[in-house]
């Protein structure tokens, strides 16, 4: 008979580490999906997920069962991704001259007629990935959670551990930062 999540967690806390495996198997797809939103290379993604699970094992005592285990785990995953972003800040001031031809074409279509540039085009996806990579870790996290995942400010505050006013301030700054990056792309290409 399959054991419930609460039973598995209780068993792990009682010293039966093997009971942790079903939890890893069940929630790894969600952890990987979260990690892939913040990191590109598979090796980095695996490192993040590994860290999330090791942290989850170490801090399982702090899980009080008030909220679903999944929420607790996702909070840990997002915080680990944020730590990863802070630790791997790439050169975000680099030029955009390296944007690919399809991206350029998509931008040209957008400039000519915004309605004709489809959001589901691969070039648009590549471009937004590029823009997100140029953002600061705080801005990227906020844009990802607030704009892309459509989470509320309160939810973000719970996930990140930041206060609600801080989330609002950072969201304002993040939108500004994104606008600046977009302005730079268009300035380099179309001025």
């Amino acid at each position, binding site marked *: 008979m399959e054991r419930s999540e609460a039973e598995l967690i209780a068993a792990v806390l009682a010293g039966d580490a093997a009971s*942790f495996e079903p939890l890893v198997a069940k929630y790894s*797809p969600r952890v990987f999906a979260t990690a892939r*939103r913040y990191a590109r290379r598979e090796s980095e993604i*695996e490192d993040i997920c590994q860290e999330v*699970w090791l942290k989850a*094992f170490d801090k399982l005592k702090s899980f009080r069962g008030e909220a679903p285990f999944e929420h607790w785990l996702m909070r840990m995953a997002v915080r680990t991704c944020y730590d990863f972003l802070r630790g791997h800040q790439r050169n975000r001031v680099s030029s955009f001259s390296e944007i690919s031809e399809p991206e350029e074409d998509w931008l040209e279509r957008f400039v000519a007629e915004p309605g004709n540039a489809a*959001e589901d085009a691969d070039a648009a996806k590549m471009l*937004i990935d590029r823009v997100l990579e140029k953002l600061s870790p705080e801005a990227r996290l906020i844009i990802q959670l607030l704009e*892309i995942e459509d989470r509320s400010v309160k939810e973000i505050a719970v996930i990140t551990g930041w206060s609600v006013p801080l989330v609002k301030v950072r969201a304002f700054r993040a939108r500004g930062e994104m606008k600046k990056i977009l302005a730079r792309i268009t300035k380099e290409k179309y001025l």
Partner: protein
Amino acid sequence: MNLPELQKKLIAAARLQPPDDRVPYAFEKRIMAQLAARSATDHWVFWARGLWRAAAACVAVAVVFGAVSLLKPAAPDNSNDLSQDFENTLLASADLPDNSSPP
């Protein structure tokens, strides 16, 4: 260029990207192996931690005693007296008046 519109389009493009939730083969086995390896080294960590704590306590005691010996007012210098006493003791027999010689 309509930047807010471009921003909206790109955000919409990002929303359309389904997050890839593929998990590498036997990932959970790897995690379990790591946890097992960690618990094996935990015994060494336990001893290492204990020994480091003991070392820290020893250093603290040494520092306290060092400080006490440095800050304690120096005792009056009795080295001369001691040497004098030593000399007197040593030469006491020689200093005795020679009463054994024949009159």
